[in-house]
């Protein structure tokens, strides 16, 4: 092996990488917020009897689930450009991941809605609750319970997907910062190993806190 590792140099860039990690988390959280909002609407659209709503939301969901995430980011980056909407690489990344998240979460939410039996709603109504109150106190907590874990999984996916931004030229997130350092120094292995370790820690942080939250939230 004719190679000297320069780990010290890589560790010196740690503050820069951690700032990148913060951007990664921000993008992931933002894309999840947009994804959840759109996902709920899509789930309702997929259950709707209106042909237009059903068709549009089905197209979105199937498109998001049957093409690569990177393709979706390309679509936002190159595709929207030719429609005259020019987006920078960072918003393109955000749009791509949000689109993807929404597609996957829509199916999760639809499954969750189906998992709460209709009799629950009727039982709540017959106890004298109004429809909004029954939804809030009876349906929503059960829905939340079934979608919590898949949603947290999707959050991990969102973190991993943000690394694709570097391919369309994002240079502020963890993968982007790492690539900038790599181009400057050609210490590919060291920097990417460190970045990989940080990604690992972030995803572990999410799964562990999700597990802790679940034990607190779903005690009964």
């Amino acid at each position, binding site marked *: 092996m004719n190679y000297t590792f320069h780990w010290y140099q890589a560790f010196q860039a740690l503050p820069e990488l951690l700032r990148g990690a913060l951007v990664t988390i921000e993008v992931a959280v933002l894309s999840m917020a947009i994804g959840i909002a759109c996902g709920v609407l899509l789930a309702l659209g997929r259950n709707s009897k209106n042909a237009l709503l059903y068709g549009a939301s089905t197209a979105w969901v199937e498109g998001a689930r049957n093409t690569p995430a990177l*393709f979706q980011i390309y679509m936002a980056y*190159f595709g929207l450009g030719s429609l005259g909407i020019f987006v920078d690489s960072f918003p393109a990344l955000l749009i791509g991941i949000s689109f993807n998240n929404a597609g996957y979460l829509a199916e999760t939410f639809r499954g969750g809605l189906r998992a709460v039996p209709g009799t629950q709603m009727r039982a709540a109504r017959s106890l004298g609750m109004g429809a909004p109150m029954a939804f809030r106190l009876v349906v929503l907590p059960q829905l939340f319970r079934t979608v919590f874990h898949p949603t947290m999984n999707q959050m991990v996916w969102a973190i991993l997907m943000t690394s694709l931004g570097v391919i369309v030229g994002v240079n502020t997130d963890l993968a982007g910062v790492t690539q900038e350092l790599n181009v400057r120094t050609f210490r*590919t292995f060291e920097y990417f190993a460190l970045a990989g370790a940080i990604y690992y820690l972030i995803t572990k942080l999410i799964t562990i806190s999700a597990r802790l939250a679940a034990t607190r939230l779903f005690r009964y």
Partner: protein
Amino acid sequence: MSGSDFGLQEFMLMLEGASVTLKLTFYAVLGGTLMGLGFGLVRAVAPWWINWPLGAILDVFRSVPLLIQLVLVNSFKSILAVNASAFVVSCVVLALYTSSYCSEIVRAGVLAVPQTTRRAARSLGLTYWQDLREIVFPIALRVSLPSWIGLTLGVMKDTALVWWIGVVELLRTSQVIITRIQEPLLVLCVCGLIYFAMSYPISRLGARLEARWRDLD
């Protein structure tokens, strides 16, 4: 649209790219499934001091972005001065990545077979391997097959990342064509449709299987 430069030649190029995508998927899923079967079985039956470290190692492949894994293995290959093409590196990384998910699917499938069923099989005189082959395998297959189909499709979509280390597959081919004829939307739509055509029928099949087997229970 008058006079698009997108012709048969471009389309054939993209189909060629798609065939590389399918080849990558095939090798990755083949290798990943074989390894995943082994790891999954070990994880289902081994004591905790084997199970726990193996699980932790496999978990790394699921917690680090695939892009980073590809770059890492590719640069490590150069460090070791191993002469392997980008295609081989991609297959190895994708296979490991697949095996990590597949092992979880296999493990869940094996653990889904009730212990009482297995004891009943043993007490009818079946040997350990007979029990595994005749009882556990068919039941576990039902539980696992839909997820395995989902995994295969996921890997197919994830092969789009390998152009970063220099493999020319469907997405890369599309990009090359875009730079040449400057019609990104059209080319990307065709590319998306090819991906969709490869993925959608199989995903419907998976959903059908899942629904049918759920109704049988």
